[in-house]
């Protein structure tokens, strides 16, 4: 198929960007979206033009590196997949495809379609872990965990940290990302010990980094490639308020 691509080009964080049109020909319907961009980049290199920068790595939907805003939607038109899992059979011959980077203040553009998502790592560093050192742990079967709770923890833990939730949100809120981690540990007995500090520290780090508030539009859930439910946000809110109340009481 032949396509017109409208791609956001921006040389660096501090320079202005703009859309540039490109044509690609004879793209196979079986090619993945990123393989289509590979074809474009080969073409650009051969013609002495600067290839389009974009993050990608595993190309099987798990590393969370790819992050394209395609025709106005994070990871494109299909539900429950990442950009790299999108195949060209989803598009029509002759179509124009608009490709942008994630747009959110806490994710500055590095170049073209590549953004800086270290804010997510900073939120995890604020408490997204259980403070155990290596070694000397009790037997793994010492604490039985109801299958239902373990399954909910796994649902939350399947977050790949891609940032589609932030990109989808009109407020650039990171609530779904933070809630997924808080919720994973809230469901597990191992996570209870530090639950109060965790939720407070992660939420205040999220606010400090400039992510916006949640206004319950559920756009994050709709665009999450791992289909993580907003019910985790509700769980995080409960954790947050109860931790605040207990902290107040102890004052």
């Amino acid at each position: 198929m032949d396509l017109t691509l409208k791609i956001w080009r921006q040389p660096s964080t501090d320079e202005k960007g703009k859309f540039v049109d490109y044509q690609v020909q004879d793209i196979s319907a079986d090619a993945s979206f990123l393989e289509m961009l590979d074809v474009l980049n080969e073409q650009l290199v051969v013609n002495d033009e600067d290839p389009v920068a974009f993050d990608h790595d595993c190309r099987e939907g798990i590393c969370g590196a790819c992050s394209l805003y395609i025709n106005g939607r994070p990871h494109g038109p299909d539900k429950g997949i990442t950009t790299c899992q999108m195949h060209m059979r989803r598009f029509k011959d002759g179509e124009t495809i608009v490709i942008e980077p994630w747009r959110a203040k806490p994710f500055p553009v590095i170049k073209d379609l590549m953004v800086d998502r270290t804010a997510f790592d900073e939120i995890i560093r604020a408490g997204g872990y259980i403070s155990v050192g290596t070694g000397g742990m009790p037997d793994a079967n010492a604490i039985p965990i109801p299958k239902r709770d373990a399954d909910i923890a796994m649902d939350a833990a399947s977050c790949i940290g891609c940032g589609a939730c932030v990109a989808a949100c009109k407020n650039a809120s990171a609530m779904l990302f933070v809630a997924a981690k808080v919720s994973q540990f809230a469901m597990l007995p191992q996570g209870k010990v530090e639950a109060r500090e965790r939720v407070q520290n992660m939420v205040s780090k999220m606010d400090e980094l400039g992510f916006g508030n949640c206004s319950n539009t559920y756009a994050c859930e709709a665009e999450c490639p791992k289909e993580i439910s907003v019910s985790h946000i509700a769980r995080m809110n409960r954790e947050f308020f109860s931790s605040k109340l207990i902290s107040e009481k102890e004052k």
Partner: protein
Amino acid sequence: MDKLDAKIPQGPLAEKWTNYKAHQNLVNPANKRKLDIIVVGTGLAGASAAASFGELGFNVKAFGIHDSPRRAHSIAAQGGINAAKNYPNDGDSVYRLFYDTIKGGDYRAREANVYRLAEVSNAIIDQCVAQGVPFAREYGGLLDNRSFGGAQVSRTFYARGQTGQQLLLGAYSALSKEIAKGSVKMITRSEMLDLVVVDGRARGIITRDLITGKIERHAAHAVVLATGGYGNVFFLSTNAMTSNGSAAWKAYKKGAFFGNPSFTQIHPTCIPVHGDFQSKLTLMSESLRNDGRIWVPKSKEDAEKIQKGTLNPTDLPEEKRDYYLERRYPAFGNLVPRDVASRAAKERCDAGYGVGSTGLAVYLDFEDAIKRLGRHVIEARYGNLFQMYEKIVDENPYETPMMIYPAVHYTMGGIWVDYELQSTIPGLFVAGEANFSDHGANRLGASALMQGLSDGYFVLPYTIQNYLADQISVAHVGTDSPEFDAAEKSVKEVIDKLLAVKGTDTVDTYHRRLGMIMWNLVGMGRTGEKLKKAIVEIQELRASFWKNVKIPGKNEMVNMELEKALRMTDYLELGELMARDGLLREESCGGHFREEHQTPEGEAMRDDENFSFVGAWEYTGENKEPKLNKEPLHFEFVEVKQRNYK
């Protein structure tokens, strides 16, 4: 030869590691604060090592090529992690895990290393559960297990089809905790381009900032490489796009020996190749072989009809199907080790029984399992894999059998290390897939995650102290030595040289060409003739690359073509060493199959008299033939015999 002392502790197999730990040198807490460690790579092995070093009190600098340590390719491991817990009470033990791994590796790994791996496997599961890794559980709340290739017990722990992701996120959270504490400094989007050796010891690295292009120097008392495998030398593999062999290759060129470079794992269950635009291959987890049955048509006529699309596989009656693994290996059936399953698939396809439009595919069929267990059970077990398959192939595997074919997945070869995971360069330690150590000539499924975490959590934190104990009098190592000057200069020269070529062909076109040579001549069916041809063709391709590669832009910017070109220069040398190693090894073992050396039934035929050794290659200089050193393998505790999965 004294360079190749594996330093295996004395004593009975089961006591070696205990004895080692009891007698090794340690560093006291006050001195740990004065010692610096560089960790390159933050996948399972690197992140777990860096976090553990930080907890102990060392100053750690960790480097990764991604924007975050959470993206390392360990994340893509699907099926599971082995441990000898014997929770199902089905006869497992540390010894049996050890034995299955040694046998699965076709008796080309060190007994002491493999035993230690099996010994610490249980602590890994305990560790991960304590970190909050949500492993699959049964209704009683206890951990669930499933079975994997090469074993007759169920010892694989898993988290849906995302086990690698959950284990990596566990290690990443431990690492994040240490970064927050300040014991680990994390440097992201940074690629190691050389190792710095001062007075015979590894003392630092040269890196390139992947955003600004800045070349930087970093010094430490010891360097750990945990940079993964080099399967991408084949261009098409299940590895991530940026997974590469460069850090290991630079270490080799600075004096670290390279062990068994030709030992490559070709995984039997990948989605077949289609089209010449393809950038990578996708694995379908080995766990699918628990419930899927592998078959091709019994007659060539039916195979041809299926290839042409005139016959639907679901219309082919049971008696016209050849479940060739169940037929050839009744004891292990569809759960034979990966090398055996891959070769059997290739044999059927080469003989004309393959399916799919190319004839290079076999079926992995879930019809029986769906009938037996119900679709919902299969969906719960493998739902995400089925979804991945459907997205790529555009067919519903619940209704039509999956098509699979072998693809490059893992490299058992890597930097030679002794029992302490130290290379032939003192102070250079190598962990995870980047070393050669534990899997012999074939890795069993669910053992890579086990090895990565074993090295990082439970081996290196001990063994590195044995080295650092006599480094406490060395003040912080500086970067203003002639060795750092020389290394930085040579890195800059290579970059300038590459940018100056200004040829006509892109890096990817060269990578595809190298991949074709490797797959056709150094792939699943090797011969002396093919390997000799590969050496010549790779040399020609290398010469052409340096004359004709085209890289746009400059160094001081985000320049992914330059990144690829730098990795490519190493693949073009590493590929040749792989062919040399395969040529030298006049036997078949595990994934290394020399067609000249097979039994009448087509099984791998080892030559224990002449080849029961680790081939450790030593760099001797630019365009000079490398030197082979041999580490003989001694089997004191297991009886070496032909692998039998019948």
